[in-house]
């Protein structure tokens, strides 16, 4: 079974909101209709977005870290938002695991948004139906696009490659390896929703330099240039060739 998902590297995200704007652009231009805005050029602008980047400060000055935290639907493997929907508008696709809303069936009762602990579903103020991240379902399966462009808009837009996209059920995929190798984790694991999107934690990027790397251990007197040239018969470092 396939479970498409995003892996977001918090170590790399710089909080530039490129994913937010590219997501809005792609998803407001599609066949599903515009993602409406309210007062876009006025005081108090608002509107529906699938993806938001939030900023948190961890620790106490001077020992602080700024964490930029992009958040969109996590396409849970056990999505609590799906069974509560009275109309069947919210569903999880069995073939690729994407959780979608059928905008033609949704009655805008908002019950699914109550049932999502992550606060990622938003009512579209224009269409009055529930909307949320589709993983750009209208683009990732589009055979008319070159393979390299069959990715969600946010992944293509991210200037620091903080966003990876792939099948987390395939152990050899880029995303599975990233989760495995970098301690990828899920949000609010306490609710048993098994989010598919994972986050890679902040990692310390200090370089570890041992003292003997600064100074050659076999050259305490720093006389590299003065060393006698070994004879051609002496074994070389790799024991095969000689000088």
């Amino acid at each position, binding site marked *: 079974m396939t479970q498409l998902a995003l892996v977001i590297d918090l170590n790399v995200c710089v909080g530039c*909101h490129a994913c*937010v704007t590219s997501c809005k652009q792609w998803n407001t231009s599609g066949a599903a209709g515009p993602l409406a805005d309210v007062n876009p050029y006025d005081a*108090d*602008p*608002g*509107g*529906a*977005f699938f993806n*938001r*980047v*939030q*900023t*948190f*400060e*961890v*620790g*106490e000055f001077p020992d602080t870290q*700024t*964490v930029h*935290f992009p*958040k969109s639907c996590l396409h849970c493997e056990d999505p*609590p938002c799906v*069974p*509560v*929907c*009275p*109309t*069947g*508008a919210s569903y999880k696709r069995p073939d690729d695991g994407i959780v979608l809303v059928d905008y033609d*069936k*949704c*009655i*805008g*009762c*908002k*019950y699914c*948004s*109550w*049932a*999502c*602990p*992550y*606060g990622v*579903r*938003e*009512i579209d103020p224009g269409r*009055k*139906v*529930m909307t949320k991240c589709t993983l750009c379902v209208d683009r990732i399966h589009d055979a008319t696009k070159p393979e390299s462009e069959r990715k969600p808009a946010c992944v293509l837009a991210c200037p620091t490659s903080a966003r990876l996209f792939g099948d987390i059920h395939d152990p050899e995929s880029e995303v599975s390896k990233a989760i495995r190798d970098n301690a990828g*984790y*899920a*949000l*609010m*694991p*306490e*609710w048993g929703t098994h989010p598919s999107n994972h*986050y890679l*934690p*902040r990692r310390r990027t200090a370089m570890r330099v041992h003292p003997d790397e600064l100074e050659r251990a076999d050259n305490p007197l720093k006389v590299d240039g003065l060393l006698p040239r070994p004879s051609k018969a002496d074994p070389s470092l790799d024991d095969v060739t000689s000088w």
Partner: protein
Amino acid sequence: MRPEASVILLTTLIGAGQGLFLAIFTAHGLALFDLVAAADSLAFDVAGSAIALALTGAGLLASFFHLGRPERAWRAIAQWRTSWLSREVIVLPAFMFAVFVYALVHFAGVRPVLARLPGGGAIDLATLAGLAATLLAFALFVCTGMIYACLPFLREWHSPLTPLNFLLLGCASGFTLAAAFSAAAAPGLTRLFTGYALAFTLLGLAGRGAALVRNRRLKPKSTLQTAIGVKHPRIVQKSMGFQSGSFNTREFFHGRAPGTLRWVKWTFLAAAFAVPAALQALALVLADPAGPLLAAAFAIQFAGLAAERWFFFAEANHPQNLYYQAVA
């Protein structure tokens, strides 16, 4: 959560309607066993059912204002296998239909005896329709309560006390209304209904009080640490990613000061329980059926229950709120 007028009206109105019908059918059932004198069909059963229908119909109407796309509301019957909301959408009209049939049978007087109880009570069409409506009324209380109780991370609601309180509070207001109504339509039943109403009001106080105590002791399971997955005791949100409001900042916050919440809590404890219970007790000790007294009890209790429902939403804390704490 943000209390919404449409949902407050829906749940309080249909609760009173269900309770009222349960009261009417209680009298019908007791009459079958000759425990009370049968009330006048037209003045009591038909008129009472009509009031119950008006209440549930008004609740149904209010619920449409909750929807973004009310014209598609019929689609909500699709997922009854998994969704309590879908089940409620099916059971509510079914209950109204059964009440309508009950009233119609009484009105038309089409009551051939289908079977006889050992004591001689006649089982007729009205009894069957009333029995169906009674079962549906209970089912509706369960559905309405479970819509809220089935969401595990809304921990203030995720308790068997939620459907229980919907049942008790609906019966309290319904039986109080039945008492006030019967003072005019069937004075012989007023004392009986007042007694029931008092019992349900006190039971409701116990159930709601237990829920209040339980919710005060709840410790949040989700924290900012689990929300963003950073294990540090001090995390502060600096920006939620946009400067003005969004759906997430409106739908899930009540936006009132903690003082308001406290004030509403004491108001509904007084108006939904203490004052009506006192009036009901007074009506019981007074010799004549005290119609105006009971009408006042119903009006005060209904307003109190609306406040109770407002508080019910406001007191629920959604974990998504962790992500929306700082405007910037």
